[in-house]
């Protein structure tokens, strides 16, 4: 799955040579699985005469405000619409994307600019789950029929944004800067029948946290995990 660090040095040339088209789908045990390229950006580099290296360095920054906001883009949305047109609205869908397919915090590009349009394409389908990266933290959201799970990073955690944090998110306990692996980890997604997904956050050196399908679907009324002792500053 493409993220900005794979793409903006050569605009995805090498990535596509190695892995093929950045958006694709397949069916798996009754679930329609989609990988969606969601980190396209409108050209911010030509007018500034940036070299490929400078462009890459710019997208590596979070708060520079120079790079454009992520988007699936018109072509990507067209592709998604056509792809989903082949399945019934009862078919559970699982989408992998890099950026969250909703609007969390625009200044840090924890954001997809055309998220509303993408969600509209997904709206007719009964069971949709989005698993995304980019945010490097435990992150959960539910918008209409869509559940969103943000994955942990194996490299370093990010702070929670000062504004825009989804209400359903249970924060991970504050990271210990002196432990380079703290608040990092991997995870597992248990896909039950009907495409109902539980997300298991496997934080290294910490207790695992499970965000069940029921927790999100009930707007936090059921299966609520405990909040950590120390919330983000």
């Amino acid at each position, binding site marked *: 799955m493409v993220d900005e660090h794979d793409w903006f040095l050569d605009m995805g040339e090498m990535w596509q040579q190695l892995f093929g088209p950045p958006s694709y789908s397949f069916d798996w045990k009754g679930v329609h699985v989609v990988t969606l390229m969601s980190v396209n950006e409108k050209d911010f580099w030509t007018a500034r005469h940036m070299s490929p290296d400078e462009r890459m360095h710019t997208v*590596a920054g*979070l*708060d*520079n405000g120079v790079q454009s906001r992520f988007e699936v883009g018109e072509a990507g949305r067209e592709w998604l619409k056509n792809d989903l047109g082949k399945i019934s609205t009862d078919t559970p869908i699982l989408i992998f994307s890099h950026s969250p397919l909703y609007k969390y915090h625009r200044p*840090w590009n924890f954001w997809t600019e055309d998220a509303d349009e993408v969600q509209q394409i997904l709206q007719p389908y009964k069971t949709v789950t989005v698993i995304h990266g980019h945010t490097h933290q435990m992150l959960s959201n539910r918008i209409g029929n869509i559940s969103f799970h943000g994955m942990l990073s194996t490299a370093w955690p990010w702070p929670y944004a000062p504004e825009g944090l989804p209400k359903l998110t249970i924060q991970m306990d504050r990271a210990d800067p002196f432990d380079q692996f703290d608040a990092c980890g991997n995870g597992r997604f248990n896909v039950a029948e009907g495409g109902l997904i539980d997300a298991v956050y496997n934080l290294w050196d910490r207790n695992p946290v499970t965000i069940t399908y029921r927790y999100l679907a009930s707007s936090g009324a059921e299966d609520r995990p405990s909040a950590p002792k120390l919330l*983000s500053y």
Partner: protein
Amino acid sequence: MTMRRGFLLISIGTLLGAAIYLPLRLQAASSQLASHSLPPAEAGGVVVGLCDGETSIEVRWLKPGQRMTREQARAVSNALMAKWRQRHSNAEWQTAQAQTSQPGATQPAAQQGQAGATAPAAAIQGGVYERLTPREQKIADLETTKFIEEGKEIFHNPDKLGGTIGLSCDMCHPDGANTHPETYPKFQTQLQRVALLRDMINWCIENPVKGKPLGPDDPRLRALDAYIIAQRNGTALAYGKH
């Protein structure tokens, strides 16, 4: 007279004319420049002139080349002003303070006969901070902002941090998030000491950023300090908070 001779005569004439005319013109130009001709010292001291180009006094105890203390200089300038006021008893002196407090004021402070320009609000007790002019306040704000911007620059730049792996502070702390300067000082077990903000800055520079810790007077450390604190403007202090 041939054409050539005629031409020669005209050329010589022009050159002679220029030779006489130009120096005169330059002389006139230089005499148009303002200058204050100070009278010579009569008692072996130094003659000090006021900026009006007319008033001067001789400071008898001051030897040429000798430097005055601040108090002595203040006394001399007061004496000059007193002399000026003697000669212009009807004029209202606009202090430099009032002059520069007006945006776009173009008159020099020495202009006489100024009346009616707005002065800053009257000081109540006359302390230093009461007497700060709007201009001084503006300069202070600009300097502070500039310093914080320098810190922001360094915060976002691996090279300026002295890092060796291309990592900069913003990559883990966008907009200074999660730096919580308001929680220092606090005992940090991992450092085995009570840490200040700058101890954490240096720890990060040494460890994730892989640079050398900055010395206490390093302008970079001071600027980083300023930037990080500025991002938490308005947050209550809470030292010791983990």
